[in-house]
């Protein structure tokens, strides 16, 4: 039982990181109709941006977080403008392959700039808090609080702002959005900016929780897609729920199968969703 609850705590932590990635992925999927395979690597880039700020200016990682988010948002918009925008009209599949190439480019750039070895934001071991039999690191609480804060911000943006509503509208019904006079290109740029910023946050939190590594984002890509599909394509709230479910399932699965199969658990849930409820838990737009 103790082990179960401890794993559940870890699962919620992983789940909130996945949720941040999945919100961006699902909005990009919803608005642009393609699975963005570079999303995981965008996370990794965000994590390394924060590392650069931390090491160059000697700042705490939470101060570096907003900087990384802004930089990654700009990078995501830039990639879209330079590459994706040009092939958006050709075929969705070309976009998909292109995003695969983007993933490799980002990952190799990370390797070239920061090297392939593991890195951390802060050296030294954090004293964990012991709450009875449970272990909780201060960082975990921080990650959870910051992730919750970001999710609330996204919620406010999506429900209160003109742009947020336009984004939901485009994800809901692209044709009608055009007819209504919603400026598609501006909405697309905002989608990339927000997706990039959230991916950066997810990457930084992942780096705080574990370590930084060039493939850190790629390994989380499948769980993020699983969360996206489970929650329903184009549904940010579904993505949050999906992220938490997948995160907990991955952690809890270690009770019964070897930990190295964690990604397979996320994938299995995804396949079952695809077969039995392709529209996701919350009905998706696809």
């Amino acid at each position, binding site marked *: 039982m103790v082990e179960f609850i401890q794993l559940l705590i870890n699962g919620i932590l992983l789940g909130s990181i996945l949720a941040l990635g999945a919100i961006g992925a699902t909005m990009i*999927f919803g608005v642009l109709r393609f*699975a963005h395979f570079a999303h995981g690597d965008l996370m990794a880039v965000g994590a390394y941006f924060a590392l650069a700020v931390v090491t160059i200016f000697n700042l705490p990682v939470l101060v570096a977080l907003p900087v990384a988010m802004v930089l990654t948002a700009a990078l995501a918009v830039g990639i879209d403008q330079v590459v994706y925008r040009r*092939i958006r009209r050709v075929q969705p599949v070309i976009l998909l392959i*292109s995003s695969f190439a*983007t993933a*490799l480019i980002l990952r190799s*750039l990370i390797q070239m700039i920061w090297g392939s070895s593991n890195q951390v934001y802060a050296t030294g071991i954090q004293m964990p808090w012991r709450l009875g039999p449970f272990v909780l690191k201060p960082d975990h609480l921080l990650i959870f609080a910051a992730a919750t804060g970001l999710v609330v911000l996204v919620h406010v943006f999506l429900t209160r702002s003109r742009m947020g509503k336009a984004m939901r509208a485009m994800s809901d019904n692209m044709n009608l959005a055009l007819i209504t006079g919603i400026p598609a290109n501006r909405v697309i740029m905002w989608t990339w900016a927000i997706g990039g910023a959230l991916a950066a946050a997810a990457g930084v939190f992942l780096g705080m929780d574990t370590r930084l590594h060039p493939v850190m984002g790629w390994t989380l890509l499948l769980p993020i*897609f699983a969360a996206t599909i489970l929650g329903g394509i184009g549904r940010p709230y579904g993505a949050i729920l999906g992220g938490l479910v997948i995160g907990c399932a991955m952690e809890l699965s270690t009770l019964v199968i070897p930990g190295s199969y964690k990604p*397979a658990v996320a994938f299995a849930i995804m396949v079952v969703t695809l077969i039995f409820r392709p529209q996701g838990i919350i009905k998706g737009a696809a």
Partner: protein
Amino acid sequence: MEIAGLIAYAIFLLNLVGIYAIMVLGLNMQWGMTGQFNIGVAGFFAVGAYTTAILTTEPAANWLGGFELPFLLGLVGAVVVCWPIAWVVGRITAGLRTDYLAIATIGIAEIIRLFFLNEGWLSNGTRGIPGIDKPFGVGNLGYLLIVLGFVALTYTLVEIARRSPWGRVLRAIRDNEAATAASGKNVAQFRLQAFVVGACIMALGGGLYAHFVGFISPEAFRPLYGTFLVWVMLIAGGSGNNKGAVLGALVVWLIWSSTEMLAGLVPTALIGSESAFRVFLIGVLLQIILVSRPQGLLPETRPPMPGEGKR
């Protein structure tokens, strides 16, 4: 000596070109002809390579086999083992839309890789399986002839398939699935057949690969080598066109190899890691192709449909 070295290098290169060409032909069956977006090429590649390795190597203490079977039986084994796996994967993913199929197949490929990584009793885990000999005691040149033979055989078979009524149905499914279903064709069945055949061709490539390099480990079946390069080849060559598929394998592998030299020219201090720089270059190359010539070097030329006049 210089020239001899170059020739040896060219032979080495062409071996890999041939092996990749076979996999590209397999992918062309799935994507180019049927429109199935499989980005789990690495999974079937790995199944073929491991099956051959286990069947043909000398008995080992730490992993399954080897059974010391002859080369050809190893390749047959690769295809035979891949068949049911591809069938199950194809059944599970049948009816998934393009992007879902993509996500599902890359997931399956990663799980296959995780499986070989973790199930040491079968595959010797990260240490991999060594001692996979070339058949009949041939060297690289002899093996090249064998590989080219298989390329020719595969090419002939897929080209016959493409021109056959079966191939026409596949293309009809790709271009207009609803209309094909409405004309009474069992779309799911045809798609599944194309998926399985394509996957088995990939497994054949995997088997040939194992014998050529002599040693396999899960590292070789990461998405970059196993899937991404194959896709770059198909897109660059021209999907739907089997000649384009083979040409793409040649061109991209040459470029891929020349990035090695290019990376050697740039000071390491500037690029950090040579292999990362190569991946970077190939990624940029693909983006350029996709933006400027998404139909590839040799675009598909379609044999006319029956009853289709010149318009």
